């Protein structure tokens, strides 16, 4: 891991407009964060808080309402020429939650894995393409024999491996993994986490790891961003998020997670969180550094009060 920022997201907003006259759905509301090269940043929060929309906007599947996305030193949120767009699509890849829905049932595993390579014209010779494809299969724990088969012949865990192989063959610098294990059976989840973990070590991958399960995110990430109602409310190292949470929402989320330890669990007290009114235009909510590298969302007045205390 280095200090070089591979991804930088500044004041990103993505609003969905249902009708001309109704208020917009502020799915992502003034979100800023960065990821260092080789780092895994976890993005965690409950369903509907805006995690997927953040990931999809970063990777250009959605056009942002406002804000900036910088990747490998270049701004990528606006219009790009063909060559620039190709550089982004090959160097930033996505792994989705539902491995069934994200694989074309009429394509063989080989066709699926090589699709992105062909589009990006990475390995023009068929031989070379094949060699790379076999290397990917091997990396994710599948075999050459799997290449000619179709998705329905595989279990959920194997399909997610195919998705990972497809994402890796373009040799990306960064992967956005959106709930990559949530749809899998528990006994398979550990396998996929271990594979991602090995790959990240081997390839020096940077990962934006999106999940609703804070235990998994904490385990898998170097730093964690906690999201609630379209905003990042707290961001720090995963140890610190767990040992010294500051934002009431983070505390509430942590207090709700059952732990496999009956003596602790029988005494666990849930802290409830009343979702407050969204900030007004004069509140200037932003992430404030309360301790080195530990950021908490506060308005001007909250920040003032905090500094006095």
């Amino acid at each position, binding site marked *: 891991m280095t200090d070089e920022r591979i991804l930088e997201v500044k004041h990103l907003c993505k609003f969905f407009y249902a009708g001309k006259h109704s208020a917009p759905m502020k799915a992502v509301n003034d979100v800023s964060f960065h990821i260092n090269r080789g780092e895994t940043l976890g993005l965690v929060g*409950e*369903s509907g808080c805006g995690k997927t929309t953040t990931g999809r906007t970063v990777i250009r599947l959605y056009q942002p309402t406002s804000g900036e996305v910088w990747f490998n030193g270049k701004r990528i949120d606006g219009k790009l020429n063909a060559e620039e767009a190709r550089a982004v699509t090959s160097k930033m890849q996505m792994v989705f939650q539902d491995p069934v829905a994200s694989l074309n049932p009429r394509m063989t595993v080989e066709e699926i894995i090589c699709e992105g390579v062909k589009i990006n014209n990475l390995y023009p010779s068929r031989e070379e393409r094949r060699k790379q494809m076999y290397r990917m299969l091997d990396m994710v724990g599948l075999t050459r024999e799997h290449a000619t088969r179709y998705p329905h012949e595989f*279990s959920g865990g194997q399909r997610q491996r195919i998705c990972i192989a497809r994402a890796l063959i373009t040799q990306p610098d960064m992967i956005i993994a959106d709930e990559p294990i949530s749809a899998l*059976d*528990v*006994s398979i*989840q*550990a*396998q996929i*986490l*271990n594979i991602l973990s090995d790959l990240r070590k081997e390839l020096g991958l940077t990962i934006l790891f999106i999940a*609703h*399960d*804070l*235990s*998994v995110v*904490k*385990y*898998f990430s170097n730093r964690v961003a906690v999201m609630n109602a379209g905003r990042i409310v707290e961001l720090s190292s*995963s140890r610190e998020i*767990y040992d010294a949470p500051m934002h009431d929402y983070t505390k*509430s*989320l*942590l*207090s*709700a*997670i*059952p*732990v*496999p*330890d*009956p*003596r*602790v*669990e*029988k*005494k*666990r007290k*849930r802290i*409830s*969180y009343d979702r407050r009114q969204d900030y007004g235009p004069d509140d200037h909510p932003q992430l404030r550094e309360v301790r080195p590298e530990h950021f908490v969302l506060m308005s001007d007045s909250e920040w003032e009060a905090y500094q006095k205390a």
Partner: protein
Amino acid sequence: MNEYQKGERILDVQDLELGFNTYAGQVQALRGVSFHLNKGETLAIVGESGSGKSVTIKTVTKLLAPNAVIKGGSITYKGQDILNMTDKQFSQLRGSEISVIFQDPLSSLDPVMKIGKQITETLRIKLKMPREQAKARALELMAAVGIPEPEKRFDEFPFQFSGGMRQRIVIAIALACNPEVLICDEPTTALDVTIQSQILELIGELQRKNDLSVIFITHDLGVVANVADRVCVMYAGKIVETGTVEEIFYDPRHPYTWSLLTSMPSLATSAEDKLTVIPGSLPNMVHPPKGDAFAARNRFAMKIDFEEEPPMFKISDTHYAATWLEHPDAPKIGIPEPLKSRIAAQLAREV
């Protein structure tokens, strides 16, 4: 009706054997399942998906698919043989004495019937309650499960409720007739943790108030630690270990239980710990393997595991495990790392 005292055996399942006829042959879904439920306690059943948890409770509540064949065993509820009851006889018990909640609240609610009516319907049919009284009771129940402004929401439809609120309604319906036994099949799996936490608290509260006996099915060991007094660990159609919640978490004996306990990270898992991967998958249940069904995935398997099925070895009056490792002649391997250190740390901590 409440002649059973706390701690007395209210439900007894013995040697249940059940298959499903399919084109590929008969799936041996339950291969000698035995457990019991005491009055007032919560029994959790855990195991990876496909191990037979849902089939077990569908057998108890007579909700089995038509291709099911019960091949042996007995189910006794308060001394009555319910396995051989007719559906008509059993329908007297279902809902009023034994209630079930499933994972997906949408599938148990009628999408085109108003929420209030779904509750009063149960009361009017099961308890023959007059309309006015049923409505009053339904509003009471909605308040009890934490629905704000029940009068207003009484006339709304399921789609107007969030997932957590729908599951509360399902619980309200399940509790409408004051059942003795509440069976919950992964009731919180689809919910966010904060909602899950509220639902677990709610079930716990209602249990204490009404002296309910609860069977709780889940694959989340954190949830088990929260709700359970006793635990059954299920694998490939068998209970492979059973004990009090402390025995299962702090003194687990079956290698399958060991893997379950370390296969998912908890908040306490350090980033350096590797997760235990249970290699392979559940065996083909049309032709279950000889010996211990877990042997092929068990790194501690011995020769005998592939040859002969282990009996339930007794560890304490409440703790049993079906593994040859408990045989007096077996090598003493003990709990493997990192589980061993984790348990030691848990027990050393002040709570």
